[in-house]
């Protein structure tokens, strides 16, 4: 490195600080500091209204023996698997359809519509539409001579129902992200594929998907982490029930903190979740080689 480039580098520092500053302040104040403090609180017995009392690893010992914590992780995992699998397949499908078949802005907007509805509203409307006795969906099922289903009420169907309601809301947004990725794929490769006589199906598997990989990696990391954080849909519909069938990890943490005033234990669970999510995100990025593109 020559002295000239190094000097230029330092000359850029003030300007860089101006640009990075606001984000850095936000990051330090709203992410880094609360995270550090959260970790400290996880080592304490803290009931919010009196001062925290240091108890070492007691909360973590309790966590290992708490069957509801493990149940919450399992329930959350079930939710994530259903939510991400269905959402990703439909999002890619929608994106390819938008890419290959239409240039209409209207259709692209319609795809995004559910995402514009607040989560809580979407959840409440689905909750009443899916009601066993008065819900319009069950009325339709009856006309089709199918037995009514207590979607949110049965332990077996509650989590899939919540996962699909949120899929419905997020699929359009995810499709738009994938769609943006599709537009970055050069036209020439499609022309070349067509020239070689590749079918639409083959083009999708051999050209589109491989070239979409970096975008898909990013989309998956974002949606998986977002999916782990499911909370509001549960909070306004099943509140963790029936029994413990929908007591997802975020809701359990919320209950421990705000209903039972056990902030220390809630912090310990949050920290455990942080470690798990960091691991998941790292594994995903490595497995999908997100930083490399097959285009270059």
């Amino acid at each position: 490195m020559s002295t000239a480039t190094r000097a230029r580098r330092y000359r850029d520092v003030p300007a860089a600080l101006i640009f990075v500053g606001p984000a850095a302040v936000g990051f330090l104040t709203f992410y880094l500091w609360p995270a550090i403090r959260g970790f400290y609180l996880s080592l304490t017995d803290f009931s919010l209204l009196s001062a925290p009392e240091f108890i070492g690893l007691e909360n973590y010992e309790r966590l290992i023996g708490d069957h509801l914590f493990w149940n919450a992780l399992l329930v959350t995992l079930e939710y994530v698997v259903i939510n991400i699998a269905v959402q990703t397949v439909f999002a890619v499908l929608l994106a390819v359809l938008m890419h290959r078949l239409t240039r209409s802005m209207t259709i692209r907007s319609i795809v995004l519509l559910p995402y514009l509805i607040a989560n809580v509203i979407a959840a409440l409307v689905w909750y009443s539409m899916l009601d066993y006795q008065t819900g319009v969906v069950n009325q339709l099922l009856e006309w089709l001579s199918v037995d009514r289903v207590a979607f949110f009420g049965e332990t077996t169907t509650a989590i899939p129902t919540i996962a699909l309601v949120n899929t419905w809301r997020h699929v359009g947004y995810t499709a738009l992200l994938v769609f943006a990725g599709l537009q970055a794929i050069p036209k020439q490769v499609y022309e070349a594929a067509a020239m070689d006589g590749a079918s639409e199906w083959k083009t999708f598997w051999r050209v589109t998907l491989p070239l979409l990989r970096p975008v898909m990696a990013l989309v998956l990391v974002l949606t998986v982490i977002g999916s782990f954080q499911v909370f509001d849909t549960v909070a306004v519909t099943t509140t963790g029930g029936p029994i413990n069938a929908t007591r997802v990890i975020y809701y359990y943490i919320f209950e421990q903190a705000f209903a039972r005033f056990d902030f220390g234990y809630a912090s310990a669970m949050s920290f455990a979740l942080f470690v798990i999510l960091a691991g998941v995100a790292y594994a995903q990025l490595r497995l999908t080689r997100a930083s490399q593109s097959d285009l270059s």
Partner: protein
Amino acid sequence: MTKARRALAAAAALGLLTVGGCSGSDDSSKSASGTITYWLWDTFQQPQYQACADAFHAANPQYKVKITQYGWDDYWNTLTSAFVSGTAPDTFISHLSYYPQYAAQSQLLDITEQVKKDNVDLSQYQNGLADLWVDQQGRRFGLPKDFDTVALFYNTKKVEEAGVKTEDLQNLTWNPTDGGTYERLIARLTVDKNGKRGDEPGFDKTKVATYGLGLNSSGGGFGQTEWSQYAFSTGWTHGDKTPWPTRFNYDDPRFKQTIAWFRSLVDRGYMPTLAIASSGVNQMDAYGAGKYAMVTEGSWNTKSYWDLKGVKSGIAPTPIGPIGKRASMINGLADNIYAGTKNPEGAWQWVKFLASPACQQDIVAKQGIVFPAMKTATVEAERAFAAKQIDVAPFTVHIKENTTTLAPIADHWADISALMTETMDSILSGKSGVDSLDGANRKVNEFLKK
């Protein structure tokens, strides 16, 4: 992409900073200028307490009361965060399931001295209500403001269609073995898709159009409107004493029999499964849609039931149980004062006014929305309800016949409640038997020893 995200993060950070900068000027923080802040959760009751606030201001011009309302779900979270940040209201309506926790954490003002100094007569309130607001150390945190009991709400049209006379609803009997005339009525009111009634041969319990009795929830460890009226009528109570039991009685055979009977209504198709009841709309809306012929409900919801479109309701008293008497839980609210209030004298004057005839008898009773806690205000309240064509005698009969049982109030209630909700949900959905109550009760008693 990364650039765009970073820009977004910066914008978000700036946005948050701005918001954070504003929150200092929250209008809910108390002021020293003689304005007393007061929080409540029930929109139906806001007008009557506003009227009390106006009357209080007229009598004490140096004080002004500012009322803020939050929905029930936000209320307790908002209040808790307000305690933490020191911006809690001077006074607020409180509930038995929350106040012990706040009291234990020194957030509430002990008013024992004030009550003694001002000679507040505690016998003017319905029996037992005043005791609920004294903790185990003998500190008083509130004066009773209202009371509530439980009764049956029935759909008059469905009762008529079943050929049942409304007089027959007045003296129903119940026992945990065969359910008595009460269960026969519930069976009669249940109708399947083919129009067959629950007490007729050929009744299809898998295709029920109208359930004889609605279901709100499993009731958890409280069961206020779900099963407490049956369990109490066997002589059972939640704990060995109330308030502040030293052990709970969820393993008592009488309680187990009651719950087994309650669960059997589901098996017979007379009451919806917990899955159906918790699959979307709540008990009141399902009743409003004609899916339930009867529900057990608390007196605080009376106006909401009368406001339902398309359904005409009547009220009947809870059935007479094995001990030869009816039973109902009695519960009541009170106003608490924040320990950190800048104006303890003004707050006390306001709370005392809320617990006085000037507010309860002259204003609240006349609205016909709740029953004020003062004995002398009950007749006035009955009259106000009657003016709206609502006969509330089924609620007040428990006062007259002295058949009320106080709501359970205990330390560690949040933990007990979480455990019992899980247990009762499981029993009511048939995933475990009533014998699982033995283990649950052991754990509940361990919470009490903490």
